[in-house]
C-alpha cells in the first residue's frame, strides 16, 4: 500500500516510501529527520506543526505526506541562510518571544505568511493571525512585539527598541 514520493523541503529533495496515511509532519520529522517541526496535539488545534506549503502556512499534522508530492515545503530549518538569521528569527530572539521554544518554529512559520500578506499588521491583526498557534509559556505579548519588530525590519523601517517596557 506504500507510495513513493519526493518531498522538496527547504530546497532539498527527500524521496521516501510512505503509506498514504503517513502524516506530513511525521514524514518531515522522521523520514526527512527535520525535527524542528513539532507536534502538540491530535486535533489540529495547536499549530506546533505549522510549515509552509508553496508559501502557505499549513498544519502539517492535518495533511497527508502524499498530498505534498511536488510542492515546495519550508520548515524552520530552512529559515537561516549563509547571510544569517531570517528577520523573524532575529525578531523572536531579540524580543524574548520564546521560552521553552516548543511552539516557536510553528509560530514563526505562521508569522512569515502573515507578514507576507500583511506587511504592516496591527496588534489585533497579529493576534487573530496567530490564533491557530498555541503558546503555553509566553502569554503572547512578546510574540506580538516580535512580529511588529520583524515587520519594521523587513520593510527597512526604524527598528523599535527591544528593551522590556515596564509601567
Amino acid at each position, binding site marked *: *500500500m506504500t*507510495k513513493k514520493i519526493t518531498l522538496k523541503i527547504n530546497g532539498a529533495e527527500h524521496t521516501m516510501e510512505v*503509506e*498514504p*496515511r503517513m*502524516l506530513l509532519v511525521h514524514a518531515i520529522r522522521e523520514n526527512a529527520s527535520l525535527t524542528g517541526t513539532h507536534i502538540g496535539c*491530535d*486535533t*489540529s*488545534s495547536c*499549530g506546533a506543526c*505549522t510549515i509552509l506549503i508553496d508559501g*502557505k*502556512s*499549513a*498544519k502539517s*499534522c*492535518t*495533511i*497527508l505526506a*502524499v*498530498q505534498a508530492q511536488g510542492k515546495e515545503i519550508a520548515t524552520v530549518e530552512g529559515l537561516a541562510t549563509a547571510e544569517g538569521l531570517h528577520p523573524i528569527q532575529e525578531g523572536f530572539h531579540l524580543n524574548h518571544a520564546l521560552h521553552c521554544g516548543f511552539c516557536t518554529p510553528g509560530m514563526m512559520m*505562521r508569522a512569515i*505568511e*502573515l507578514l507576507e500578506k500583511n506587511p504592516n499588521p496591527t496588534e489585533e491583526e497579529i493576534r*487573530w*493571525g496567530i*490564533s*491557530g*498557534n498555541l503558546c503555553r509559556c509566553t502569554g503572547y505579548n512578546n510574540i506580538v512585539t516580535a512580529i511588529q519588530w520583524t515587520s519594521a525590519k523587513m520593510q527597512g523601517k526604524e527598528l523599535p527598541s527591544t528593551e522590556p517596557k515596564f509601567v
Partner: protein
Amino acid sequence: MIAENFNYDAPTSLEEAIALLHQYGDDAKILAGGHSLIPMMKLRFASPTHLIDINNIPGLSYVKEEDGYLKIGAMTKEVEVEESEIIHAKYQIFMDATKLIADPQVRNFGTLGGNLAHGDAANDHPAVMIALGAEVEITSKDGKRTVGIDDFFHGFYTTAVEHGEVLTEIRIPAASGNYGSAYHKAERKVGDYATAGVAAMIQIDDQGRCTKAGIGLTNVSPLPFRAKRSEAVLVGSDLSEAVIAQAAQYAAEDCSPSEDLRGNVEYKRHLVGVITKRMLNKAISRAKK
C-alpha cells in the same frame, strides 16, 4: 493519533474522480481540504478505505459573478474567499464568517464545498448559504444537477451529495439593490465551533421596505436551520425595531438547540435572539450604505 490505512488516488479530472468513486464503492471518500476528514480519520471516527483527492483537478476553484449569480467553485479555499475582491465589495457576510472559522492555517486548506458537503450543523457556511438562498451544483456520471440549499442537508454528516457524486459549485443569487448581509457566532474561544451562530441577509427597496430576507442559524438545530417565521415577519416590513425584535424572538423560539458543554437550551436560544437582532441591524446598515 493515526488513521487506519487506506488507498490514495489523486485524479486530474472530474470524470476520473467519479469513475474512481464508482470503482471503489461506498468506502471511498473525497478528500478536499481534508480539514474535517483527516482529523476524523486520525481519531478513527471515519475509516474510508479509499481517498480520492480532488485537489489536482483544475477548474474547481473560483469566485465570480456570472448570470445573476455569485458562483463559488467547490474547491475554493476559505482564504480565497476572504481575499476575493467581489466578496469584499458586496458579500461582507463571508468576511464576518471566514474570520470566525477555525484559524488561518485551516482556512488555507478548508474548502467551501467541503464545509457544506461535510454535512455538519456546527460548520458556519451552511447557515450563511441558507441566509443567502444558495443552490448547490452536484456532478455525477450522468451530468450535473442543482439542489436548493433547503434540500441539501439531510442529517448528521449526510447531504444531497450521493455516493459517486461531487459537489462542484455553489451559486448565490447575486447581490442587487440595497443588499446587506452579516454573520456572527458566539464561540468559547476564537476558532471554536459556534455555541450559536446567525447569518442574515436583507434587501431593501428605496422606500425602506424589506423585499428579501434570509436568516440561517448555526449549531442550534440538528440540521442547519432556516428561521422562516423570522424571514416572513421581515419581508414587506419597514424593519422597525419592533419587527427586528419580533424576528429575533421567532428565531430564538424556532430553533431547537441541545444542551452541551457550550451551553444549555435557554442560553443558546437567548444568544440566537441577541445575535439575530445584531446581525439584522448590521445587515440593514450595510444595505443602506
